[in-house]
């Protein structure tokens, strides 16, 4: 179903006039945006939101979301936008407090789709226990047909004593992932035009701040955390080895991957380690505390399939090496750009 209508009517689609700042803009806000997102910070509709003072150090992040298609099994661009920014804060160790939300909408975009996406944003914000404090809407002329682009920024609060830094990683530390890999990226690939794969795969987009708070509360010596979005687990681990100058050895058989994900990746010629995740976290933790963190994850709905997948070793040059099921080894590197489905 096309999201950009060939003919425009104010009842069904977004018009340029909706971005004009006049009556139609007010109507867009009151009928399609505010009903979902209303909260004490947003309601005054002032130019800026006044936040309560924070006791911890403020952490600030931003991200833009241009995913196509806009809606996919397990989520949509709105959910992705909230979870992406919340997770960027959470993996720093910060408690997310407020998000900003800027929508750039293409003229002709379906209002019904906008409603669905804004409702999804609200739902994700509730799950993350974070408020959309301020926002903006612009409407642009019909062009490439992207339909909708979202930019978010987020502010969080870093409690004292949290110091997650790859420089603290030492040999013997364990590497853990909080759940099954590659589900988001593979889902997007299967719904892209032309490939026509139907599957049980669903995006794993989810806010991880609740799970991460629980991990932090165990008192474990967590060295570093990151969410493996674009570039996948491979990207994150390569960053770590470059920063800390040590190597990481992974065990292929320990990687949590569902059968459908493994087979879909094989079908498309992709490596699960390089595919994006939107509801997972890579955690490097001191060896003595690894089991404790693992149990905590597995007790949480978003961490049921968590697994310890490898460890840090003092081997030069600093590389990520995968030990395969057959007993061999090969290096894991960052993907080189767009992962195209291979046929040959």
């Amino acid at each position: 179903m096309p999201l950009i209508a060939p003919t425009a009517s104010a009842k069904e689609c977004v018009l340029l006039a909706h971005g004009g700042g006049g009556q139609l803009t007010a109507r867009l806000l009151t009928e399609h945006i505010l009903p979902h997102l209303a909260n004490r910070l947003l309601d005054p509709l002032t130019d800026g939101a006044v936040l309560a003072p924070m006791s911890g150090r403020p952490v600030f992040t931003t991200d833009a979301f241009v995913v196509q298609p806009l809606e996919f099994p397990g989520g949509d661009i709105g959910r992705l936008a909230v979870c992406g920014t919340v997770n960027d804060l959470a993996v720093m160790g910060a408690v997310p407090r407020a998000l900003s939300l800027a929508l750039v909408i293409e003229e002709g975009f379906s209002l019904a789709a906008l409603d669905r996406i804004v409702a999804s944003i609200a739902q994700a914000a509730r799950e993350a226990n974070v408020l959309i404090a301020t926002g903006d809407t612009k409407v642009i002329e019909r062009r490439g047909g992207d339909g909708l682009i979202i930019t978010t920024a987020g502010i969080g609060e870093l409690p004292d004593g949290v110091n997650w830094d790859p420089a603290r990683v030492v040999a013997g530390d364990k590497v853990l992932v909080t759940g099954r890999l590659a589900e988001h990226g593979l889902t997007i690939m299967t719904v892209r035009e032309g490939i026509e794969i139907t599957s049980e795969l669903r995006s794993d987009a989810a806010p991880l701040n609740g799970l991460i708070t629980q991990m932090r509360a165990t008192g474990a010596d967590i060295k570093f955390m990151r969410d493996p979005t674009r570039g996948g687990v491979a990207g994150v681990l390569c960053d770590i080895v470059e920063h800390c100058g040590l190597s990481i050895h992974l065990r292929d058989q320990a990687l949590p991957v569902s059968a459908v994900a493994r087979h879909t990746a094989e079908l498309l010629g992709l490596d699960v380690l390089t595919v994006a995740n939107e509801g997972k976290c890579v955690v490097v933790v001191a060896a003595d505390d690894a089991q404790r963190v693992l149990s905590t994850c597995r007790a949480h709905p978003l961490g049921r399939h968590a697994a310890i997948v490898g460890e840090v070793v003092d081997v030069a040059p600093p590389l990520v090496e995968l030990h395969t099921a057959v007993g061999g080894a090969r290096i894991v590197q960052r993907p080189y750009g767009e992962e195209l489905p291979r046929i040959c």
Partner: protein
Amino acid sequence: MNPDVCHSLLCEIRDLASRLPRVQLMEVCGTHTVALFRTGVKSLLPENIVLLSGPGCPVCVTAQGYIDAACALADQPGVIICTYGDMVRVPGRGGSLEQQRARGARVRVVYSAREAVHLAATAPDAEIVFLAVGFETTAPATAAALLEAENLGLRNFSVLTAHKLVVPAIEALLSSGDVPIDGFLCPGHVGVIIGSDAFEPIVVHHRKPCVVAGFEPAGMLHGIAALLKQIARGIARVQNVYPVAVGSQGNRVAQAILQRVFEPAPARWRAMGELPASGLRLRRCFDRFDAWRRFDLAEGDDYDPPGCRCGEVIQGKTQPAECVLFGRACTPLNPIGPCMVSSEGTCAAWYKYHRLAVGV
């Protein structure tokens, strides 16, 4: 995958290797090159068993002139190029198809030739050209898609052919005598189409053992063990260790479709020159689907970019690490030749998976 079976096959390989001098085996399939690395099998082989990569990456063996012709076509107004992902980053004289796309050319990555046909059916105002690259595993798909286009009466669909045949290339390599090869690990999925008997000429004319193997670790180990056994016994025959998918006669239906649409023709291979009856061209009755004729294109000259040794790499004459550009001027981000950029290129596989490479 049963690690016990793999372990016992490895023990067998080590035992055989201990009683053999240095052995050079050639694997003639880019998918084997990648699978051997990805599964870690390559890292487990004894030092005296050397695996050379042969002309098995369809993009790498395609002469540079084809890539230049494809890029020239991409610039023509109204043309949409449909191609498998592998071709998109290979550099031509004026850049790659990916770079051209960034400059406004219409280039679309497809998973199947059928997608190109469906695009042509739904976009009658555009000229759809499908880049038909690949060996015997892939050529039947092009043939079938072309027949579908004919059935639909499409007037805006054509194919720029560069399909190649594996056995003639292997024979040419052996005839040149440049590289000592003791046996061939033969591509299982090409075998699915052509049948294991099709590898007989290699045994009959050159007395080299050929084992047709699949792509799982156990299958590849089984293939290598079988080759070493033959070498140890001084025999040479075609052996099929992938019988679940490969028969002696191959897929007769696919072969018939191939013969209906294509005929064998001389083809230009990177650095190997023109080899007789080593490629496929469209039969004359399909002229209107032949992009070479439709757009009056000629395949440009073959050349390796300065310093590039892709031509030697695909013949097994040079290992990637022996090329002075490897990992330095030539990396996957900045590829000079196709062996580095193609997902099945030997240099790309070395760079991606091999320990030594990253030290560069």
